[in-house]
Every structure is written in C-alpha cells, then in structure tokens.
C-alpha cells in the first residue's frame, strides 16, 4: 500500500490516473456483465450500510422532532428539541470542550506521531526499529475503558505514580482529576497516549514509500537535517498527513470512552464532550428526541470540518 502516491478519496472524476479495465471482447454478454458486476461486488457493503447506517441516520433525524422516553409512545414537538438543545448551557459547553479537545489532542497526536515516525524510519538497527514500531503501536490494542481504569490510579492526586515522579524533580502534587484543567489535561494525555500509534503507523507507511533516490537528490542539492525534512519529507508526506489528520479529527470529535470512564464529564462540565451529552440525554435523561437533535448537529459539524479539510488540502497537499 503506498498511501503517498495515490489519491486518498474518490474525487468523482475519472481522471484516468489509474486505467480501468477495457475488456478485450466487449460482447453483449460482456457489456451486460460489465454493468451489473460492480454492483455485485458492492452489494454487501452498500446494502449493509444502507440498512445499518443510512436508515438509522434518517430515523435519527426524524426522531429529533419528537419527544420520546422509550417507555411511552413518541410525541411530535417540531423544532422544540433543537431550540432547547441549542440554548442548553451544558450542550454548549460540551461542544466547546470538544472543539478545544480536538485542536489540542490532534495537534499533539499528529506531532508526536510524525516526529517519532521520522526518527524511527531513519537509520536504525532493524531489531530496534521493529521494537519501537511495536512499542508505539501497543496502546492501540488495549481497550479505552481498560486504559482509563489504570490511568485513573496513575493520576491520583495523592497516591498516583505520576505525581510521585513529578515530586522527584521537585514539582508539587498536581491536582489531576480533581480540578477542571487537570481533568482536561488527563483526558487529552490518555487519549493521545492511546491513539497516536495509529497515526504513527500511517506515517510510517507514508515515509516508507518515499523513494530513497529523492533523498539522495536532495542531499546533492545541499538539503540535510531539518531542511531535508521541511523541503522534501513533509511535502511528499502531505497526502498521508491529510489522511492521518482527517481520521484523527473525525475520531477526536467523537471522543467518548476516555472522558466517560476517567471523569464522567466532571468536575463541573470541564470534560463533558458532545458525544457524552448525546449519551446522557438518551440514556440518563430519557430524552431520545433531544439526543437525536444533538447528534444531528454534531454530525453536520463533523462533515463541515472534514469538507473544510479537503478544501484546504488542495493548497497544501502534493501528489506525485
């Protein structure tokens, strides 16, 4: 897989970059086959998604106009849910938190992943390289819930190992999970700890497919060290960076497991995220209509941000 050299998404145009089949014998049978064949291949995925994703989305949008507590029958309330939700201070704060979270966490995640990937891909004994790759990917095989469980102990203000380590270098005990800023920091750190391995892997793939000859040419032109990275690596890596950042942002916008297990959204609303509010509206306040309304708003935001990224990508991403 060479992510660095292929178009990351279908841009809809048959720009002929990758030649498609032209069957040698365009017989009538062949042409008929040609027409329904793609659909045969696509059927499981398309039908499955239609039933289990698209249909529920439509249902969810419809549900947003009703009040429903799952026990009694739904009642139609028009736009009331949307009005209430948009004015609800908890919902607003949660969305704000989510945006801030995404900015900080994704920046950290991508920065770390990129930096470490570059370091790992440069000259290293093979066994060390394998070790580092495995180590950095490791947190991904753990469940977010498990991770949050033991991270809670590590960040305990009185008895956690993190504060103990800080105390060795003279830093007083940080109130990690008991203050708003501390909690937000923990959620971000735990999330990045768990997820950077994925971006790291994508970057490794991207870096691996940059041909050595390009570096040779660059070094002949005098680009070494960080100049090499700035002028050669980063531009060539930009398609991968786009994929990595789109995925990272889409994921971060939907963060739920870590704040839910670590802090339940507290203290106050400091670590309450958009998806948490959806969950709480539905399953704790039994307001399934409002939950759907919030969900619709969040999905629209995610789509808008992703579309914006692709817009921007036209300026910053270089394809070969």
């Amino acid at each position, binding site marked *: 897989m060479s992510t660095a050299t292929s178009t990351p998404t279908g841009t809809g145009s048959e720009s002929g970059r990758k030649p498609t089949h032209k069957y040698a014998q365009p017989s009538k049978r062949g042409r008929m086959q040609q027409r329904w064949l793609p659909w045969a291949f696509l059927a499981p995925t398309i039908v499955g998604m239609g039933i289990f994703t698209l249909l529920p989305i439509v249902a969810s949008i419809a549900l947003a106009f009703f009040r429903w507590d799952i026990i009694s029958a739904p009642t139609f309330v028009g736009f009331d849910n949307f009005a209430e939700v948009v004015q609800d201070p908890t919902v607003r704060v949660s969305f704000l938190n989510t945006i801030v979270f995404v900015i900080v966490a994704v920046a950290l995640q991508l920065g770390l992943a990129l930096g470490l990937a570059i370091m790992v891909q440069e000259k290293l004994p093979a066994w060390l390289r394998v070790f580092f790759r495995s180590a950095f990917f490791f947190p991904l095989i753990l469940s977010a819930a498990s991770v949050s469980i033991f991270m809670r102990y590590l960040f305990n203000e009185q008895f956690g190992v993190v504060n103990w380590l800080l105390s060795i270098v003279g830093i007083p005990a940080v*109130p990690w999970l008991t203050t708003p800023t501390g909690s937000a920091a923990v959620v971000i750190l735990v999330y990045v700890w768990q997820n950077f391995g994925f971006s790291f892997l994508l970057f490794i793939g991207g870096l691996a497919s940059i041909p050595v000859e390009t570096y040779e040419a660059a070094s002949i032109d005098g680009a070494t060290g960080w100049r090499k990275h700035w002028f050669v690596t980063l531009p060539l890596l930009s398609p991968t960076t786009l994929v990595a950042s789109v995925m990272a942002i889409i994921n971060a916008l939907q963060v739920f497991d870590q704040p839910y297990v670590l802090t*339940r959204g507290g203290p106050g609303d400091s670590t309450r995220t958009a998806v948490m509010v959806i969950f709480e509206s539905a399953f704790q306040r039994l307001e399934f209509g409002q939950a759907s309304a919030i969900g619709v708003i969040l999905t629209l935001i995610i789509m808008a941000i992703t579309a914006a990224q692709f817009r921007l990508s036209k300026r910053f991403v270089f394809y070969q």
Partner: protein
Amino acid sequence: MSGTNGALREFTRRSALTALGAGIVGVTAASWPRLTGADIPGRGDNSLSIAIMGTAADAEARQKVIDAFAKVHPEIKVKVQAIQAVDWKDFFTKILTMVAAGTPPDVVYVATEGAQLFAEKLAHPLDEYLRRDADHMREYFEDVHPSLVEAFMYKGSLFQLPIDWNAANMYYNTTALTKAGLERPSDNWTHTDFRSTLAAMKKANPKDFTPYYWTNRLFGGVVPWLYANDTSFLKETKSPGGEWLWDGFYANDPSRSLRSGGYQWLEPNADDPRVFESFDYLRGLVKDGLGVRPEEGGGNSLIGLFASNRIGTTPAGGYWVQGLHEAGMTENDFDVQFFPKWRTQRHQFGTAGYAIMKTAKDKDAAWEWVKFSSSREAMQIVFPTPNTTPARRSMANQQLYAGTGPRNWKVFYDTLDRFPTTGPIPAPPQQASVETALMKNVSLAVSGDERQLKDALSSMQRDLELALRRQP
C-alpha cells in the same frame, strides 16, 4: 512460474483457502446457538424473570433462593438475570434497554436511586397484595425499621420491600487513630470534634497520609454532611397517604408520627444558607489538607488505601466490611462510628428491594417471589457475608460480623433506631440528571475560595432547576 510447480502452488493455495472458508462456515454453524442466544436457558419461556444488579456469581447465589422458592411454589418457574453495572444509574439504563427491546424483566431489584423512577413509570404498587397477605407480612414489618419502608413509599403506595440497605457511617483506621493518641470518638461527636480528630491524625501520621478520604457520589459524598446540618440540596417534602400501611403494621412504633405517603423532592435547595455552610465546612477541610479533593464517583482505590493505613476516615456503610476483610483487615485495624453530629445527627441511607414491573404478565407469581425473598430464610441465603446490611434487624447480629468485625457493628442498625429522622438519599424520578447536576458542581464548590463556592452553588441551583423542570 514453471508448469508443475505453479499448478501445485495454485492447488495448495486453493485448498488452503477452501479449507479456511470451510472452517469459518463450520465454526459459524457450530456456534449458531451461541450466536443467536438460543443456548441461554429459560429464554422465551414464561418463567418469572428477576433482574438483579451483580455478577454471574451473584446470580448463582440467588439460585439457592430459587431452589428454596421452588419448594414452596413448585408451580412457578423462576430465572434470575444478573446485570452488571458500575453503579445504579448504569443498571437502570440497562433495564430501560430491556424494556425498549421488548424483553423486560418481571421483577427488578431496585435501589433508592431508581425507586421513584420505577414507581412513577414502571412498577406496580404492592398495596393490594400487602393488604391481602397482611397477617403473613406482619412479622417482616416488625423486623424492619419503618424508615427503610418509608423510603419506598411513593404518593401513598408502597412499591418495594427493603431487603438490604446501608447508611453512611464513619469508618476509621484504628492504627492511624492510635498513632494520634486518640481513643474511639464518642457517639455524639460533633463536626468540630471531627475536624480536631482529623488535625491530630494528620500531625501524627506520615506525609502521604490522608485524614479524610471521600468521593463525589450521591451516596456518601456531601449529602451526609447536608443531612447532619438538617438541610439538603433539594427541598424535601412528604406526600400524604400511607395510613393503611402505618396503621396496619407500625401502629405502635415510636416514630409513627413521622411517617407519610413517601418523600418528594420537587424543588432545588442549593441556595439555602445551611447548604452553603455545610459545603464551606468541607471546603475548609480540603483547604487545610485534612480532606481530599474528591474524585468523581468510583472509589475503587479506597479499600486498598484504607487497608494500607493511608487513610484515616471515610464515610461508608455495612457494605464495606467484607471488602476490608478480604483486603486483610481485622477488627483491631478498623472500626465504625456514627456520622458526626451538627444541628442534628440525621444520617443518610440507601436501600434496595424488589419491584414488580407493570409489564409483568403474572403479577401474582411476581408477588409470591417478592414475599418469599423478604422472608428470613431467603434473606439468610442471600447475605451470608457482610457485604451489605440486611434490612431485618434480627439479621444484623453478632454472628454476621463475627469473623470480620467491626467491633462496633451495632452502629449500623442503631443508626435507624437512634436517629429516626434518618432518610434516604434524595432521588426523585429524575434522579439521573439530579445526580449529575449535584456531582458536577461539588468539586468546584469545595476546591476554591468562598467566591468559587458561591458560584458553584448557584450553578448547581440552576442545573437542578433544569433537571427538575419536567415533572413526570
């Protein structure tokens, strides 16, 4: 690719793939019963389904009760479903999911947190059954304190029979206390005495020791302090009715005059000066390093910390005893005392019992189960170890606490007798959002200055108003 080699490779590849495919199909076919849940016993038959919160081990423990029940009622088939949840909120979410799935249980073990939600929307009142079987039930009510029963009254009807309960008493670590040169605090120690105790403990114990460890929860967080100060974060009123029960079963009880048709929490009370006072006291403890800044919920680290003498005191109920015992503590290492007194010594408790669902097809059978599980025989089977406090006074006895301590186990049930105004945690039908509104603001309230406390309490008042806005 040479001729024969290629064909051979092709052949082995294809047979390997076919074998793999066959294997996958085979596994799927073989595990079909598991995949469709057809191997779950009692599925789809019309046995009485009982939902409890707990693990598979808890369900097995209930099996003995089922066997005993079968002896009395061989015609009623029963199956117990253990639903695992971190706290009661999650448990009720699961129950609601089952209702939504069209497979609701017939009987649910409900705690105070969900009592009014169930009473309002899901449960069937026990009144007619109690009236019918009054003679049989008299013995039960004589053995159970009326405070527990009143907690399950709602608008004049009773919806559950208390089976187990826990008040928030104060546990202390004997080692830490002795190090500070102190003796067991007296029964009516005040909140000022408590503070001095904490200060003394802090002085005498190592640096990483915490005198008062508490967590931010509905049970055992700030609420015991609010109750001791004769206030609460919701305005507490009582609904009329219930005479049929009180006159029928508790006519001679000394606290008869206090009883009603059930608690009601309709309005927020976070702007009450006494609420401010209580929070300020806790804030002072935190500021002076006598108490921790609370974690949100959980409390998992608690037993380990307490057992290693890193904590001096913490609020907890009878449910803690078994855990401490398993962590290696003996009756020389810890003990329990009443919660400190302020304006009153009103304690806060939570309790639980079985509720019959409105959707139950055979309510008579469900009642037989509820009745049977309130019998001494059934309760004895279910509570062999002190991992909670039994609702029956006669069962909270020397025998139960013999192997584990605490020495002053009498404190548990005496809490109800000595302080008959002791009440349940505030849990209206909107309990989930009320609890969230409370917990959200507690941490901010106790970890800053007075200004921050005021702001946190107004925020709490506002959040509570929103939570209680929609009356069921």
